[in-house]
C-alpha cells in the first residue's frame, strides 16, 4: 500500500515537472496541418470526393476527436492492405508518430498554434486531376436517389459517342455527388444488353445486375473508389474503345438522408496510335461458394501456375459482405514465397485496384494462389442476413463472391497468346461452376440453363450442353428456340435421331422457323434422307434467302440428289451475300467440287444456337 502511494505521488510530480518545463504543445499549424493537408485534404476538400472538408483549422478542429478515432483505427486514410504487403500507388499510410500527434492534439483541446507555422494548402486543379479529357461522357439524366435507409445500387449504360475505334490510355471518374456515391464499377458492353436493361427502366439507369457482356476492356481494370485516380498507361498499353459500345457504370451509393441528385461523369484520355502490347487478366477464385448458416470460417482457395514469364502490374480483390480475410500469394520457382495481397478486415466498400509502383517479375512456373475466409455467423456485423442463412455464389450483394484478379503482362505476343488461351479455359470452367451454383439455387431458370449450355459448348463439352438445353426445353416447352437449341447441340454430339425429334418439335411450335428448317435439313442430309432434307432446305431458303448458311445447305442437298447445276446456281446466289471470310473460302471449295460433279461429304455445318 505504501509503495502504491509513493508511485502515485511520483507520477504527479513528473506531470508537474513536464508542465513547468514548458513542453511545446501539439498545435494545428505546426504539427497537424502538414499531416492533414497531405493525407486527408486531397479528398476532404471542396469539390473532392470526401463527404466534408478538412482544409482549415476550424474544419479540422470541429472533427478533432473523430479524426483521432478514425486514424487510430486505420479506417482513414482508407487503405485495407496490411502494412508491409506490396508497394502500391496511392499508398500513404500514417506513421506511428503521426498518429500520436493527432491523438495528443485532439486530447489537449485541439489548439490552433502560431499562424506563422501554417503550411500552404496544396493546389489541386479544379475538376480533372489528369488534365482536360479528350472525351467526357455522362448519363443523359441525373438519377434521383431517395432518402432510403439502405444502400442503393444503380447501373447506367452510357453510349460511346465515337464513330471509329479509339485507343484509351486512362479514365477519370467523377462521382457527381460525393455525399452519396461510395464506389463505382466500370465496364464496357459491346452488346446492347446493358442498354436494353437501362431503357426498360423509365428512370435513369436500372436496378439489378450487369450482364456478363459488360466486361473489362481486354487486359485492363476499370473502377473507382474515393481517392483513387489511376494514372494513364503508356501508349503501348492503351486499350481499344469501339463505337456502338456502352460504358457501363454501377454506382454503390450510401443515401445521405435527403433526396440527392447523382450525375456521374467519366473523362477519357486517348492515345493517337494502337497499342503494341496487351496485358492479360487472370481471375482466381471460386464460384462454387455455398456457406452454411453460422459457419464462421469458410475458406475458398484457387491457384494457377504461369506457363510463361510475366510481370504483375496490378491486383484487385473482390468479395461481398461476409468475406473477412483475403490473401494472395506468389510462389516463385526458386522456392521463395511472396505475399502479394493481404487484407485482414475486408470491407466491400473499399474495392481498390492495387497498382504496383514497380511491376513484379514473375518467372515461368510461378504459382499464383488465393485464399479467402468468410464469416457467415451472426458475429459478423456486416452479415446482410440475420439470422444467418445459407449463402451461395452470386452477383447480388446479398450473395457472396470471391475473386482475386491479377493484371499480367507477358513478354511477347506468343507468350501472351498461350497465357490468354489457358486462362480463358480456366475462367470459363469456373464460370460454369458459377452457373451450376446459381442453378442449384434456382433450377427453374431457363435462361441460366441456356447460358451455361453455351459455355459448355465453348469448352467442347457437348453432352453437358445437351443436358442444360434439355432442361431449358423442359422448362419452356412452348418455346421453339429451346427445342432448336437442343436439336443443334444433339446434332453436334452426334445424336442425329434425337436432333431430328427436337427440330421437328421446334417447327411444330413455329412452322416458319427458317434456321430450324435449315438445321433439320442438314441433319437429314447427314442421315442420307436426301428427299426430306431437300424439302426443308428449300423451305429455309424460301423463308430467309439472305442467309448464306441456308443457301449453302440447299446447295449441298441439290448436290446430294445429283442436281449439280442447281447446286452451283445456289452457291452463286450465296456468294453475292455478305459472309465471313472463312465461310466464303469453304463455299468456293464446295463450288469447285460441284463443278466436278462430286457428291458432298457428309459434313454437318449447323447454324449456331440462338435462344
Amino acid at each position, binding site marked *: 500500500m505504501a509503495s502504491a502511494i509513493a508511485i502515485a505521488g511520483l507520477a504527479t510530480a513528473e506531470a508537474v515537472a513536464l508542465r513547468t518545463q514548458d513542453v511545446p504543445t501539439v498545435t494545428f499549424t505546426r504539427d497537424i496541418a502538414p499531416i492533414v493537408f497531405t493525407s486527408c485534404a486531397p479528398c476532404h476538400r471542396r469539390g473532392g470526393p470526401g463527404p466534408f472538408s478538412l482544409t482549415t483549422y476550424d474544419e479540422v478542429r470541429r472533427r478533432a476527436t473523430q479524426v483521432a478515432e478514425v486514424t487510430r483505427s486505420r479506417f482513414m486514410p482508407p487503405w485495407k492492405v496490411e502494412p508491409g504487403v506490396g508497394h502500391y500507388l496511392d499508398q500513404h499510410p500514417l506513421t506511428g508518430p503521426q498518429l500520436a500527434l493527432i491523438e495528443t492534439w485532439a486530447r489537449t483541446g485541439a489548439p490552433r498554434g502560431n499562424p506563422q507555422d501554417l503550411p500552404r494548402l496544396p493546389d489541386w486543379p479544379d475538376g480533372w486531376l489528369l488534365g482536360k479529357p479528350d472525351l467526357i461522357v455522362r448519363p443523359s439524366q441525373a438519377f434521383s436517389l431517395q432518402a432510403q435507409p439502405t444502400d442503393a445500387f444503380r447501373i447506367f449504360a452510357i453510349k460511346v459517342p465515337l464513330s471509329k475505334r479509339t485507343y484509351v490510355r486512362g479514365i477519370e471518374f467523377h462521382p457527381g455527388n460525393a455525399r452519396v456515391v461510395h464506389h463505382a464499377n466500370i465496364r464496357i458492353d459491346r452488346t446492347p444488353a446493358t442498354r436494353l436493361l437501362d431503357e426498360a427502366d423509365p428512370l435513369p439507369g436500372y436496378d439489378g445486375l450487369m450482364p456478363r457482356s459488360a466486361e473489362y476492356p481486354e487486359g485492363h481494370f476499370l473502377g473507382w473508389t474515393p481517392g483513387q485516380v489511376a494514372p494513364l498507361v503508356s501508349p503501348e498499353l492503351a486499350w481499344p474503345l469501339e463505337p456502338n459500345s456502352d460504358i457501363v457504370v454501377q454506382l454503390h451509393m450510401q443515401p*445521405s438522408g435527403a433526396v440527392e441528385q447523382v450525375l456521374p461523369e467519366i473523362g477519357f484520355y486517348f492515345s493517337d496510335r494502337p497499342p503494341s502490347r496487351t496485358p492479360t487478366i487472370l481471375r482466381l477464385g471460386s464460384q462454387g461458394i455455398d456457406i452454411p448458416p453460422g459457419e464462421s470460417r469458410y475458406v475458398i482457395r484457387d491457384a494457377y501456375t504461369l506457363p510463361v514469364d510475366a510481370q504483375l502490374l496490378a491486383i484487385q480483390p473482390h468479395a461481398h459482405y461476409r468475406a473477412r480475410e483475403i490473401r494472395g500469394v506468389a510462389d516463385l520457382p526458386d522456392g521463395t514465397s511472396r505475399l502479394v495481397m493481404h487484407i485482414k478486415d475486408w470491407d466491400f466498400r473499399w474495392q481498390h485496384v492495387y497498382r504496383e509502383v514497380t511491376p513484379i517479375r514473375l518467372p515461368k512456373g510461378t504459382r499464383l494462389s488465393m485464399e479467402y475466409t468468410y464469416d457467415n455467423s451472426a458475429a459478423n456485423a456486416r452479415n446482410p442476413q440475420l439470422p444467418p442463412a445459407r449463402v451461395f455464389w452470386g452477383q447480388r450483394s446479398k450473395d457472396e463472391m470471391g475473386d482475386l484478379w491479377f493484371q499480367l503482362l507477358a513478354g511477347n505476343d506468343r507468350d501472351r497468346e498461350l497465357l490468354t488461351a489457358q486462362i480463358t479455359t480456366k475462367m470459363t470452367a469456373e464460370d460454369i461452376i458459377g452457373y451450376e451454383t446459381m442453378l442449384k439455387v434456382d433450377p427453374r431458370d431457363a435462361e441460366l440453363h441456356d447460358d451455361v449450355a453455351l459455355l459448355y459448348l465453348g469448352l467442347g463439352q457437348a453432352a453437358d450442353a445437351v443436358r442444360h438445353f434439355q432442361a431449358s426445353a423442359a422448362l419452356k416447352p412452348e418455346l421453339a428456340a429451346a427445342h432448336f437449341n437442343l436439336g443443334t447441340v444433339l446434332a453436334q454430339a452426334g445424336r442425329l435421331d434425337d436432333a431430328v425429334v427436337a427440330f421437328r418439335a421446334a417447327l411444330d411450335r413455329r412452322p416458319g422457323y427458317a434456321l430450324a428448317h435449315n438445321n433439320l435439313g442438314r441433319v437429314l442430309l447427314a442421315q442420307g434422307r436426301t428427299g426430306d432434307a431437300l424439302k426443308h432446305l428449300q423451305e429455309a431458303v424460301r423463308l430467309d434467302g439472305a442467309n448464306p448458311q441456308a443457301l449453302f445447305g440447299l446447295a449441298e442437298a441439290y448436290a446430294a440428289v445429283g442436281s449439280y447445276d442447281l447446286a452451283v446456281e445456289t452457291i452463286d446466289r450465296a456468294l453475292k451475300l455478305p459472309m465471313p471470310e472463312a465461310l466464303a473460302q469453304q463455299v468456293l471449295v464446295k463450288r469447285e467440287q460441284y463443278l466436278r460433279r462430286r457428291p458432298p461429304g457428309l459434313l454437318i455445318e449447323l447454324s449456331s444456337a440462338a435462344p
Partner: protein
Amino acid sequence: MFVRIALTLLLATTSALAAGPTRVLDLDGRAVNPLIPAPGTVATVLVFATTDCPIANRYAPEIQRLASRFGARVRFVLVYPVAADTAAVVRDHLEKFSYSIDAVRDTAQELVKHTGVLVTPEVAVLDGGARVRYRGRIDDRYIEFGKDRPEPSERDLERALEAVTAGRPVAVRETRAVGCFLADLVK
C-alpha cells in the same frame, strides 16, 4: 452504498429540472422548454443533431418513421446545439431532409448537459417528469466510423418508446451512440 448512488442521481435530475432551460430557442427566437411534455403525450424524444454530420443526416428517414409511429403519444424534438446552425441554416436543413417535427436551438448546451449526450445523432427519451428514461443511439446500425451493419439488429430507441408508451420500464436505458462529437463542435 446502492441507496446513496440512487439518491444522488435523483437529486441531480431534480435540480436540473427545477432550474429548467432558459436559453433554448425555437426557430423564431422565442425561449421554449421542451422538457415540459406536450399535452396528450407521455414522453418527449430529444434528437440531437448537427446540420453537417453525415451519420446524423442519414438517420433522417428513420427519425421521421419513428415520429410517425409514436406521433400521437410521443413528442419528437430536433435539438441543434451548435452555434453555427443558425435558425436559417436549421430551416434549410429541415426542408432538405424532409423533417416535419419541431426543432429547437440549444446553443448554450443546456439540453446537452441535462441529458448527457455526447455525439450527434444521439437521443434522450424523457418522461412526463423530464426524467431521462433512455439515452443513446437510435439503433445499432453504426458500430464505429467506417463499420456499420446493412440493417440494425437492435432498434434501441424504438424498444424504449414501446416500453414508455406501454407504461413498462425501459430494459436498456443507456447505449453508446456513434457520430460527431459534440465536445469538438461546441468549443
